């Protein structure tokens, strides 16, 4: 891995190298929203290209937040510096979960950002339990592991949000196994359960 610039995540002190793959296990909507807003604002302030896949995020609320931070939601979305889409629309396009398509999409998102001159790109995605019910849903952890592989190649900083109230305990632990870093009590720490993707996918 080449030397990567450090980026601020917004929701924790200190910085992490660009391209870090982090998971947040939460059981409180405010906790989730706080991370989401801080991560997005931090990226936009750093002139990164930001995209957010969330079922809960609301454009109007975000516009209010942006305005409070002297950011123009209209301009940012018009220039594609920021984009917002529901999880189900992005991840479950065509009624199935297709890891390859998602990985391609992420790679394109990064490449376009580079092409448009952004200093970096970041993505926040909240997974929802419906994934298990869709074709391809069993490949969720494979997908997460392959993101870790993708991020070794592309410095695309990613935060994955999982609601502990929506997934069972075993799934949550499996989520931990495919994320190298995790957010614990406001700090980003190395995840001892993490299994390197090469091993996990082997």
């Amino acid at each position, binding site marked *: 891995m080449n030397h990567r610039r450090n980026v601020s995540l917004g929701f924790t002190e200190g910085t992490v190298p660009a391209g870090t793959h982090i998971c947040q296990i939460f059981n409180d909507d405010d906790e989730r929203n706080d991370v989401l807003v801080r991560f997005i604002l931090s990226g936009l302030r750093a002139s990164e290209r930001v995209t957010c896949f969330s079922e809960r995020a609301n454009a109007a609320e975000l516009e209010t937040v942006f305005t409070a931070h002297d950011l123009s939601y209209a301009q940012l979305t018009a220039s594609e510096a920021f984009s917002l889409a529901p999880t189900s629309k992005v991840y479950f396009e065509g009624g199935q979960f297709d890891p390859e398509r998602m990985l391609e999409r992420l790679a394109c998102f990064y490449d376009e950002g580079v092409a448009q001159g952004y200093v970096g790109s970041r993505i926040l995605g909240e997974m929802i339990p419906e994934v298990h019910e869709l074709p391809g849903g069993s490949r969720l952890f494979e997908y997460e592991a392959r993101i870790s592989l993708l991020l070794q190649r592309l410095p695309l900083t990613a935060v994955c949000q999982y609601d502990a109230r929506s997934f069972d*305990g075993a799934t949550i632990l499996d989520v931990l196994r495919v994320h190298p870093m995790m957010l614990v009590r406001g700090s980003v720490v190395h995840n001892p359960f993490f299994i390197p993707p090469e091993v996990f996918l082997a």
Partner: protein
Amino acid sequence: MTRDADPPLQAKTLGELLLIQGTVALLPNTRSILQFVCHGLVSVPGVDRVEFRIGSGPWERDDAFTRAFALRSGGHDHGGLRVHCEDPTPFLPYVPYIENLAAMLGVILEERRQRELNASHQRELEARVEERTRQLRDEVRDRHAAETQALWEKARAERYLEMAEAIVVELDVQGRIALINKQGCTLLGRTEQELVGADWFSIALPPEARDPVRQVFHEMIAGTTTQAEYYENEIVNHRGERRYVTWHNATRHDDNGVPIGTLSSGRDLTERRLFEERRVQSQKMEAMGTLAGGIAHDFNNLLSAVLGYTELSLMDFGQTQELQTYLQEVLLAANRAKGLVKQILTFSRRSKREVQPVLISELVRETLGMLRSSLPATVTITPTLRATSAVLSDPTEIHQVLMNLCTNAGLAMEHSGGVLGIELDDVDVGPELVIEHPELAIGPHVRLSVSDTGCGIPSHLLERILEPFFTTREGDAGTGMGLSVVHGIVRSCGGALTVHSEVGVGTTFDVYFPAQRQAAARAEQIQGEIPLGTERILFVDDEDYQVALAEETLGRLGYRVRITTSSLQALEIFQLDPEAFDLVITDMTMPGMTGDRLASRLLEIRPGLPIILCTGYDGRLDEPSALALGIRGYALKPIPMVRLATMIRAVLAESGPTRL
């Protein structure tokens, strides 16, 4: 499970255990937590699989490859973890950490249990509060609805009370008025404020009724009488006027059955009783009318004889001044008797009005003598008769007006004495008086004023004095009809009656009659001339003295008379020679054939025959009916000579030239 030597602890595994401890709190329930932990513990070296149990229960004993960890806290067994090892050796160093993790899980689960318990209690409490709040809200709503309903019912009951035709009175046990409706207040002429709280017996009953009614009231309260459910008594209003009320009474009791008063509803029967009295009076009048009608014929026939022979006597012996005076008095008295019979018939509505020009001054003069004898000596009569105009009326009715007004005036001065003024004037009625009395017409009138210097009439009674049966005299002293009859007669003449009275000063009644100035001369003529004739008359009457008088009277007037006391014989006489008579005069009521039937037969024989029908009284045939039969003249007995002579001439003149 044994341990030969402590294997080295791996930092990664310790980190995992720490991460499990740091993460489990995020998981929502016991099952999810234990799933998470079991899944994480599989990463511990030497572990094959991990199972969990929720809650207390049997658990197999540990062996070399199995290790159980209880999840206890606060004396509560939340479950357990059982680790199955494929190689216990690398596992054993982690046992204390896992025990620590299990203890921590026990605390977390106990804390959650407590929290859930608290939450459950909170929810239960909130549910109970919410339920109680809902109940209270419902109770408040129901109470409000009940109060609203009660208020509505009360308002409706009050409306009914106010609208009720009946008097509703509620008394407490002391007999004080607790409630009285509008009708009750109206009847007593007092306000609700005046009445509520007042003693019913003192404020609403006449003195003589207080004790007996109070006695009945106390018996009702004591429950010693059941006879008072329906009761009738008089009540008295604020002016002292009495009303007769019939009551329906009920005793009111409280919830314990203790009497707390009475509730009474009453109906004012005063008008009904008055109506009953009037009906009885009317029946009496009817009976009187029948009686009067029955005797009138005979009485009038008797008077005819008295009048007729008196007139003949005057003709024969009128030269003697003294005898003439006596006979004039007899004539006057007989005429008064005739008038009295007519008054009786008028009063019983059986007589026919004989409208003619009347000089009231003459009538007043005739009446003065009669009045003088009927009034106390302390009353002085002062007639002032200036009017010269006649009025168109029935002389008997004018006489009755005069008598009634003068009698009332005399009664007003009965105890104190005074002056009875009778004034007669020609007046011109102007617009001012017509505005006040629209029944009058502008123009010449004769005003008869009858005044007294008696006690006067209180102003509040003035408006009622013309009502039939209204009287201020007690007992049988008055019928209450006098002024009512006067009023009726005056109105039938197109006149008006006014009254001015001042208590302690006196009363004046002014009667206005439309004047008939042109008729005055005719009235005088009627009273002065006796026309004569020479025609042939057949006179029929079943009374001997009547035919004898007629023969004498008509002969004196120049007529050739054939008399008969039988109507059947009269018919035979006429049939023998229908052309032998120029006029037939017949009585009405006769045996064998009545006068009207005789007339009909005669007219069949000789159409156009002049016939005069005379009657003392017969309700079966009035003047229009007689004229409709072809009869030319209709006369009520007794018939003064002048009137008979005048009528004969008029009938014969109408029939054309007579055969002599």
